[in-house]
C-alpha cells in the first residue's frame, strides 16, 4: 500500500510527486501514456506568465502569481532552462489602449509588480521586428520562458531519485473507497493508498467524477502552433501577446529557450480530448493572426507544426484541493494555461495538504538537486574535450541539427524514469527536434534505444501503444547488416 497515489504524469503530477518526496511518505505516480509529459505539458506555449491575465480572486490568478515567483528556485534546483525575457501585450490599434490599462490594473490587483504601458517607439526599440502597426503595449517584466518538458521530466527524475515510484502505461480505470483506503485500478495493476491526488489533466474530470458528487467537466480546447527554425533566434526578444479574447490569451509570437520561435495557439473548442490533429483551418488562422505581430512569418523556415489540447474546465477556473465529499482525494482539475506557471505552487500546495492530512514528517535526506544531462551543444571546446575523455560517446553526434551526442541519448534512457520511446528521447535531449525533424538520426536513435533496452527494432515505438516505427526484417535477423 502506498501513502499517496498521484494520477497523471504531466507537469502538475510530477511537481506534486517531487514535493511529496520531501516527506516521509510512500508515493506512486500512475501515468496512462507510455511516458510522462505526453499530454498538455508537452504541447503548450512554454511561457512563465506574469499573472496579469487571470481574473482577480480566481485560483488561476493566485497560483499564477505564486508559481511565477517560485520559478527561479525550482529551475535552479532542477537545472532547467529558464529565461526572464519579459512579455509584451501589444495593441495594434488605438482602441486597444484602454484594454491595456484594464489588463495592467487587473495585474496589479492580482499582485503582479513591474507592469507598465509603453509606447510605439519603446516597443520598436525593444522589438525591431514587430509589425509597425503596433501602437502601445503592456510590458510585463516578470514574464519568462521555460522548457516545459525538461521542467516536467526534471521534477519526475528528482522525485524518483527521492523514492517516488513511477508506473507508465498505467491508465486508471477505476478509483473507489475501500474501507479506510483508496483502491485504484489501472493498466499496470490495482494499487491501494491512503490518499489520491488527481493530476489527470484532460481527464481530471473523469477521475474526479468517479469519487465526488461535486462534478466538473472538461471542455477540450485545441490550440495549433508553428515552430520556426532557430536561425531566426533573436528576431523577437520578448513573448509578444495580442490583446486577450474570451477564448484565451490570443495568438502570440515567442522565442523558446531552445532558440526556435513559436507562433500560436489558436483556440477551438472540440469534442474529442485526444484530437491532437493539426488542421488546415487552424494553421491558416495561426498564420493570419500571428502575422499581425510578425508581418512576414518565414513559412519556408517552419520546421514543424503541432496542436495541444487545453483542459478547459466548465467552472472556468482551476479546481484545486481536497474534494469536500471525498476525504483524502485531492484535485488538480481543469488546469490549463497558466498551468505551467502555476505548477510549482499547485504541486507544493497539494503535497503539503496531503502530507498534513496524513500527518507525515519531513524526510531528512531529501535531495532537491537534479542536474540535467550535460549538453554537448552548450559546452566550450575545452568542456567537450573533457566530456569525451570521460565518455567517448560524447564524440558521436547523432542529431546533427541540434548537436546531440550518443552519450546524451544513452543517458536519457538510463536516467530515472528514463526514455522508452523515440519521442521520449526527443523530449529529453532534443534529438530529432531540429530542422530535419529526425530524418537523419532516426535509424541511429532506434539502434541506441534497442541496445540500451535489449529490444528489437521492431518493438520500438514513437510514443508507445501501436505507434511502431518499423514493420519487418527483410532478411533473417542477424543475417542483415543492422549497423
Amino acid at each position, binding site marked *: 500500500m502506498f501513502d499517496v497515489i498521484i494520477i497523471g504524469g504531466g507537469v502538475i503530477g510530477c511537481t506534486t510527486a517531487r514535493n511529496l518526496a520531501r516527506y516521509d511518505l510512500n508515493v506512486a505516480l500512475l501515468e496512462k501514456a507510455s511516458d510522462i509529459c505526453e499530454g498538455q505539458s508537452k504541447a503548450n506555449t512554454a511561457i512563465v506568465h506574469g499573472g496579469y491575465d487571470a481574473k482577480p480572486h480566481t485560483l488561476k490568478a493566485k497560483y499564477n502569481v505564486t508559481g511565477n515567483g517560485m520559478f527561479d528556485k525550482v529551475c535552479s534546483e532542477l537545472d532547467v532552462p529558464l529565461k526572464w525575457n519579459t512579455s509584451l501585450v501589444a495593441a495594434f490599434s488605438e482602441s486597444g489602449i484602454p484594454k491595456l490599462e484594464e489588463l495592467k490594473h487587473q495585474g496589479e490587483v492580482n499582485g503582479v509588480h513591474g507592469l507598465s504601458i509603453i509606447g510605439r517607439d519603446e516597443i520598436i526599440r525593444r522589438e525591431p521586428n514587430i509589425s509597425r502597426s503596433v501602437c502601445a503595449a503592456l510590458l510585463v517584466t516578470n514574464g519568462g520562458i521555460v522548457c516545459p518538458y525538461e521542467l516536467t521530466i526534471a521534477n519526475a527524475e528528482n522525485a524518483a531519485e527521492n523514492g517516488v515510484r513511477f508506473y507508465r502505461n498505467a491508465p486508471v480505470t477505476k478509483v473507489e473507497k475501500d474501507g479506510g483506503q483508496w483502491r485504484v485500478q489501472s493498466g499496470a495493476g490495482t494499487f491501494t493508498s491512503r490518499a489520491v491526488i488527481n493530476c489527470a489533466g484532460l481527464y481530471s474530470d473523469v477521475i474526479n467524477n468517479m469519487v465526488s458528487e461535486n462534478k466538473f467537466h472538461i471542455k477540450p480546447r485545441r490550440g495549433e502552433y508553428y515552430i520556426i527554425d532557430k536561425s531566426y533566434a533573436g528576431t523577437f526578444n520578448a513573448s509578444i501577446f495580442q490583446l486577450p479574447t474570451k477564448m484565451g490569451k490570443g495568438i502570440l509570437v515567442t522565442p523558446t529557450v531552445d532558440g526556435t520561435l513559436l507562433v500560436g495557439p489558436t483556440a477551438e473548442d472540440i469534442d474529442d480530448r485526444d484530437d491532437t490533429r493539426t488542421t488546415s483551418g487552424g494553421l491558416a488562422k495561426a498564420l493570419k493572426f500571428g502575422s499581425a505581430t510578425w508581418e512576414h512569418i518565414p513559412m519556408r523556415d517552419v520546421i514543424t507544426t503541432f496542436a495541444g489540447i487545453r483542459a478547459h474546465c466548465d467552472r472556468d477556473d482551476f479546481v484545486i484541493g481536497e474534494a469536500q465529499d471525498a476525504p483524502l482525494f485531492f484535485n488538480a482539475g481543469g488546469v490549463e494555461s497558466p498551468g505551467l506557471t502555476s505548477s510549482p505552487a499547485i504541486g507544493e500546495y497539494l503535497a503539503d495538504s496531503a502530507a498534513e492530512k496524513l500527518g507525515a514528517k519531513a524526510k531528512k535526506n531529501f535531495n532537491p538537486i537534479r542536474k540535467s544531462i550535460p549538453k554537448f551543444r552548450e559546452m566550450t571546446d575545452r568542456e567537450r574535450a573533457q566530456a569525451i575523455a570521460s565518455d567517448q560517446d560524447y564524440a558521436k553526434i547523432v542529431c546533427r541539427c541540434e548537436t546531440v551526442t550518443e552519450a546524451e541519448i544513452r543517458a536519457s534512457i538510463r536516467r530515472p524514469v528514463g526514455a522508452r520511446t523515440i519521442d521520449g528521447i526527443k523530449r529529453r535531449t532534443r534529438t530529432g527536434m531540429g530542422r530535419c525533424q529526425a530524418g537523419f538520426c532516426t535509424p541511429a536513435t532506434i539502434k541506441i534505444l534497442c541496445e540500451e533496452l535489449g529490444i528489437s527494432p521492431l518493438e520500438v*515505438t514513437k510514443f508507445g501503444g501501436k505507434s*511502431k516505427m518499423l514493420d519487418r526484417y527483410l532478411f533473417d535477423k542477424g543475417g542483415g547488416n543492422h549497423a
Partner: protein
Amino acid sequence: MRNVDIIIIGGGPAGLAAAVSAYESGCRDILILEREEKLGGILKQCIHNGFGLKMFHEELTGPEYAKKYIDKVIAYGIPYECDTMVIGISDDKTVTAVNRVNGVQVFKAKAVVLAMGCRERPRGALAIPGYRCSGIYTAGTAQRLVNLEGIMPGKKVLILGSGDIGLIMARRMTFMGAQVLACVELMPYSSGLKRNIVQCLDDFGIPLLLNHTVVDIKGRERLEGAVVAEVDPETKKPIPGTEQCFDCDTLLLSVGLIPENELTKMAGVKLGESTKGAEVDESLETSADGIFSCGNVLHVHDLVDFVSKEAEKAGANAYRYVKGDMKKTGGGVEVKNGYGVSGTVPQFIHPESMDEPVNFMFRPKGVYKNAEICVEAGGQRIYSRKSRILSPGEMVNVQLSPEVFKQVPCIEDVTVKVEA
C-alpha cells in the same frame, strides 16, 4: 592545432571527387572529414543502378560509383577520418571536429572544400495537417532503413512528392513486397527525372497523381490513412469534394532537398536566395577567401556525375588557391537569372582571367517546350541552343569556353534565360 593544406568537409561523392582531383593536381596534404562510419555519403544506400553514365560510360550502382573514388583515395593514400563531425568553422579556415579516437581536434587549413550534401524536407516543413503518428518517413530515411538496415518500415505505402528518391523508393518498396498505392505530386509536373518516372512508377502500374496533395493524416498512433485531394493548379489550394482516402501504414515524403549549409553560414559565407547554397564564382570559391563549395551543398543536383565533375573543379581550384595560383581579381561579374531560369551557378564569373570552360547550371522555372536556352553578356547573345523540353525536374548544363567571353568587350553582367 594542426595545419593542413586542404580540408574537405564531407566524404560523399562531392568530397571524394574533390579530394581525388586536388591530389591529382599535385596536393599532398589533404584531409577528408566524414561524419558517417564509412566514406561514400548517400551513395552507400543508393543500391539501384543508373549512376556513372556520364563519368564512366557505364551503368553503376551507388556503392559501385562511390568505390571508384574511394579506391583512388586509398590508392593515393589521402588521409580521411570517418565518424568525425565538424562542429565549427571560421572564415580564417580554422576547422573544429570531434571523433571518438581524437576527441576535439582543431585544424588550420589553407583551403577548405565544403561538401556536406543536403537533407530532405520533412513533413513538419510542409505543415500537412493531421495526427503526428508513426509511419511517416522521408524517402531517404526509408531508403536507409531498407537498404542498409534491412528493415521495412511498412506494408502499404503512399508517396508524397515525386522527387527522385521517392520514385526510386516506390520501386524499391514494391520489390521488397510492399504495396505502393500512388505517388502524389502537388505540381503539374514531376520534380524527378523522366527515366525514373518510367522505370519506377509506370513499369509497376503505380499511378502518378499530378496536381494533388495530402490534406489529412489519419491514425493516432501508427499511420492508418492519408487523405489526398486535387489542387487548383494556380493557387495550389485543395479543391473541396475531390478528397479520397488511401489506407496506408506508411507515408514517404520526397518533397525537396535542402543544402545543408549550417557550417557554410558559420564560416560567414554568403548564400544565394534561390539555390540556398553558397554564392560562388567560376572556380567554385565562395565569398570567403579560400573556401570552396561543391555538390549538393552548393545546389541540389539530379545526377551524381555532375556532382563529381563540379567537385573535381572545386578540388583542383582549392589547390590552385593553396599554391597562390589564382589569377582572378575582385568579386567578378554577376550572372543573373533571366526569364524562366532559377538558381544559376556560378553566381559570379571573371571573364578576364578565366582560363578554363565555365559550366552554368540552372533549373528551368516551369515546363517549356521547344524553347531556347540563351546566355547574354554585355548585351550580346553569346550562346543559344534549342531544347525540345525543359522542366524544373531536370537541371540544365551550359558549358562555355573562356574565348566566348573574350569576344565581348566590357562585360558588366551575364544573363542566363529561356526564350519560350
